[in-house]
């Protein structure tokens, strides 16, 4: 049987003041994998490499037996081909598009943005499911932190990904909201049974989402 995640990554960063060496190897079958470590440990770098947004010096990434990256065999799928949704720490909602346009972004393959009324059944379904229907014509700057997170999740799910990458999804929210949204995400993930990697420095995230937890510091497993 193939492993769900098979990841080996190496990259060296040279800065004027310090150098940073990332060297990570992990195999996991966990549908809920948490990379846990302090900020600056290299977690976001790893997640962006998995998504294809940053290139490692040397590396191998297999997801469900499918090679997304293999520097030895010269395989390097573009982020568009990897079928992995990525939720950014501050959500990266497109500021010039409404909530509905953000959520529907991946359903329109053309060169130009569709109008504010453009929608699909999938978009409506997710807007409804995450209680965003009434906010559909709002712009990102008009949303609260919790609402913005739900838009980011809806936008990710509408693209029908095979896996979900979450970068500190609760860090931008206050304590009470975090609790409620953790439950909501927990529920969604169960329903979709979608593999997920979440990175966090918050032990509570580990307690709830960590089917398997990998601790990282200084670019390495500890």
């Amino acid at each position: 049987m193939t492993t769900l995640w098979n990841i080996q990554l190496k990259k060296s960063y040279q800065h004027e003041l310090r150098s940073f060496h990332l060297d990570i190897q992990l195999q996991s079958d966990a549908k809920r994998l948490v990379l846990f470590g302090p900020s600056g440990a290299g977690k976001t770098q790893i997640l962006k490499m998995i998504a294809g947004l940053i290139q490692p010096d040397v590396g191998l990434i297999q997801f469900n037996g499918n090679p997304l990256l293999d520097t030895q065999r010269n395989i390097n799928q573009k982020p568009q081909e990897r079928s992995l949704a990525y939720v950014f720490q501050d959500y990266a909602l497109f500021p010039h598009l409404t909530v509905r346009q953000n959520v529907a972004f991946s359903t329109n393959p053309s060169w130009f943005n569709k109008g504010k009324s453009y929608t699909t059944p999938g978009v409506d379904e997710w807007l409804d499911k995450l209680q965003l229907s009434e906010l559909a014509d709002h712009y990102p700057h008009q949303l609260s932190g919790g609402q913005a997170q739900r838009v980011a999740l809806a936008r990710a799910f509408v693209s029908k990904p095979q896996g979900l990458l979450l970068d500190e999804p609760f860090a931008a929210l206050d304590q009470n909201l975090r609790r409620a949204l953790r439950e909501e995400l927990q529920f969604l993930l169960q329903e979709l049974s979608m593999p997920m990697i979440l990175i966090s420095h918050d032990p509570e995230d580990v307690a709830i989402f960590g089917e398997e937890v990998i601790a990282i510091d200084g670019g390495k497993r500890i």
Partner: protein
Amino acid sequence: MDLESLKMSEAWIALRLTLLVAGCATLINLILGVGIAYLFSRKKFWGKEVLDAFLTLPMVMPPTVLGYYLLVLLGQQGVIGQFLKSHWGIQLIFTWQGAVIAAAIVSFPLIFKAARAAFESLEAQYEQAAQVLRVSDTAIFFRITLPLAWRGILAGLLLAFARAAGEFGATLMVAGSIPGQTQTLSIAVYEAVQAGQDDTANFLVLLTSIVCMSVLWVSGRLMPGRVVRQD
């Protein structure tokens, strides 16, 4: 038609020609300037900053020097001029198309600089977020990059239009001053003053000032940072 109204109609022709020349020059720069600025903001290549300095040169060089270079290149004996003449029978010197090229080169840095700064100030994560949503790179440029950088580019575009409309030195050297054909407003003013036609000069100067003020007013309204932020 008396002499006076003939002069006035010449002024309107000069205005139309000025807008045509500046409009064409701006359109050329919209495509070239924005395209090259995007490459500069996203790609690393050898000699990039030297090339940047070269492309910015028209902003600091005297227009007459530029005009001279253009004459040397585009003239009957010039490398490009000879090629165009022998292959397609095109002659650019002393035509309004020649004026367009002069105006385009002089105003190029204004769009290039503004567009490069606008592209470089964009946060990378918006484009990254679009990539993982499985939208092609071309679509990302038109749906994310360009709309987010548009205000900065538009401000540069209007400044370039104003600069192109006011072009004098290079245009005079390349296109000359043929009324109705290559005589733009700024050149018409010079000719009127030289000929002692104060009334025509006054009218032309007023017309030019109004055009320039309108362009600057619009460009000021579009400058980044002028909108009231909504929190």
